[in-house]
């Protein structure tokens, strides 16, 4: 029972955090057909900046809520800043290029931004456990869990609901879905596709930074963080179907839970499980488990 609860909760926490990072990646791909490798670097920057901001907050002995305000502000500022730079300086200029060329472009940006974070923040690990400590622990099913872990699950649920509301209930969100479905028709109907793309890119980058900022207190923030997460986020998005939000959720749950099972029972299979699942799903369903609807091409 203990093991079951631990495995399930670990998996759920990891899945929540994967979902937050992957949803941005998958939406950017849906709207712009760009598999944005630089997403991983934005995640890393979010984690570094959040660790420092939390450090300041705990040094100034601010109340608990200040940590979360700090995390929120960090992700908005870092995500929007990198989103704007990457979008306007690079992606916008390369419009109409091959998907694969854009993939390589974002790969270059990823290398540069990752290295820049190493230069700015140094090679040492940054720790910021204050928010985890402040929220305390709780016993569930005989195992001791941190409340912060549960708050990640809550945040992922919040992100999921917010995405659903945005894409299903607001005018802008629906217009973005129109762009995903058929870009050219959207353009002829007067949708400002460029504005929608810009909005998506920034929104997606904020989610990447949020993922990094929220996970920062639970890990040691060190170089190479983005390299790990970006391929996992790829795996999640591809398993769920690139461009599909519900797909990202299912993909995150499958990969999060399987990874947790692997870690507890066969630790050496940890990475193998993630990419094995990805390869298996792609082989059986090339478009992923829940591919977004496609306009019929004539």
């Amino acid at each position, binding site marked *: 029972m203990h093991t079951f609860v631990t495995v399930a909760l670990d998996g759920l926490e990891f899945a929540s955090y994967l979902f937050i990072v992957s949803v941005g990646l998958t939406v950017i791909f849906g709207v712009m057909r760009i*598999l944005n490798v630089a997403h991983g670097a934005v995640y890393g920057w979010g984690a570094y900046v959040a660790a420092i901001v939390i450090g300041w907050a705990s040094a100034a002995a601010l109340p608990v809520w200040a940590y979360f305000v700090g995390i929120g502000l960090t992700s908005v500022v870092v995500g929007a800043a990198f989103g704007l730079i990457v979008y306007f300086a*690079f992606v916008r*200029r*390369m419009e109409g*290029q*091959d*998907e*694969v*060329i854009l*993939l*390589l*472009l974002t*790969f*270059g*940006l*990823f*290398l*540069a*931004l*990752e*290295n*820049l974070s*190493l*230069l700015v923040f140094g090679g040492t690990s940054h720790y910021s456990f204050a928010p985890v400590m402040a929220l305390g622990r709780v016993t569930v099913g005989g195992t001791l869990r941190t409340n912060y872990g549960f708050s990640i699950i809550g945040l992922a649920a919040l992100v999921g609901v917010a995405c659903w509301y945005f894409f299903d209930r607001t005018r802008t969100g629906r217009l973005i879905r129109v762009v995903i479905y058929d870009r050219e028709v959207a353009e002829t109907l007067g949708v400002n596709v460029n504005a929608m793309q810009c909005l998506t890119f920034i929104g997606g980058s904020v989610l990447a930074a949020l993922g990094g900022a929220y996970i920062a207190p639970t890990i040691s923030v060190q170089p190479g963080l983005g*390299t790990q997460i970006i*391929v996992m986020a*790829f*795996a999640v998005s*591809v398993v769920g179907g*690139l461009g599909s939000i519900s797909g990202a959720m299912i993909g995150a749950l499958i990969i999060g839970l399987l990874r947790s099972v692997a870690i507890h029972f066969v*630790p*050496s*299979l*940890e*990475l*193998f499980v*993630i*990419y*094995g699942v*990805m*390869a298996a799903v*792609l*082989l059986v369903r*090339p*478009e992923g488990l829940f591919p977004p609807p496609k306009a019929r091409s004539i």
Partner: protein
Amino acid sequence: MKTWDPRSDSKIGPDAGRKQGLTRSLRINLVVIVAVYALLGTVSMIAADWLDTPIMIALSIGIAASGLMLLWRSGLISFGHGLYLGVGAYSVAILNQWYGVSSVFAALAVGGFLAGLTGAVIGVLIQRYRGIFFAMLNLAFSMVLYGYLVNSNMFGSTEGLSVSPGTLLGIDLVTSEGHDKRLVLLVVVLCFLVTIFVEVWRHSVMGWLGRSIRDNEVRVQYLGYSVAQTVFVTYLISAVATGLAGVVLALSIGQVDPGSMVNWTASGDLVFATVLGGTGSALAPVLGGFCYEAIHSTSMQLFPSSWGLVMGVAIVAIIMALPTGLWSVIRRIIKARVFSVKKVEQ
């Protein structure tokens, strides 16, 4: 004055591979390749000893990029050829450490064969995929190997295994001054053979089909050719080439490890070298390999802590300025010369 004859132009029609003997453009290209390699071989023989390793790494990457270039001509990019690089490199290390085999030729045979075998199995599965899915499925397979290697103590985990320089027909290639020039020459010859193969392949029927696939697969099928077969064979060639590249890379570095050979960033570097060179010629990937290694080792030397930044900026700058690769610049120069000469004659 001789006028341009479309029948002798290798760029038009799939005639080139069907004719008896070699076509004119293929003959010219082969002569150019032989000349370039004669020069390259001489330069690498007289180059200073410290240049041996960079030259061998550049050539290894050139060999891998030659295979990837054939895929790239069909519009396919693999973000997972680190898998084959790893298979080649680890076969050298395993032959070396477990079986005590240090023959370079044995390593090339085993590494090339194992990479080909892996490529054949994965190729069957992968030939249906295109674009981003092709890139990502390759990435998934390579990360499966990476995940396995990182967690296996048998293969040295993240530290990897060390490789001795090996023997060539019984001659020991170890010297106190670094690499034996014979090993350098061997790598040059291997790269030469790969380039010749690529050039001949480009002029074969299947080579032409490879390029047509990028434009329109349906039309290729209407011509009565199998797209699946073409993609599979091209993939197999790229796997073997990358496997051989892995073997010589391991021999020139003297070390194999998952982080710099099998991880997805290593695959990304191979793709960068490929796109850097372009698809314009069989020599383009080798040029890409040399430029890649030049950027990489110069930035490693000058800015040890920020070479990633330099590499990243270089990738972005080259992609944005020259999405068709460096070879397109060379071609433009040659064309400009030819046209200006013609104008004078008229």
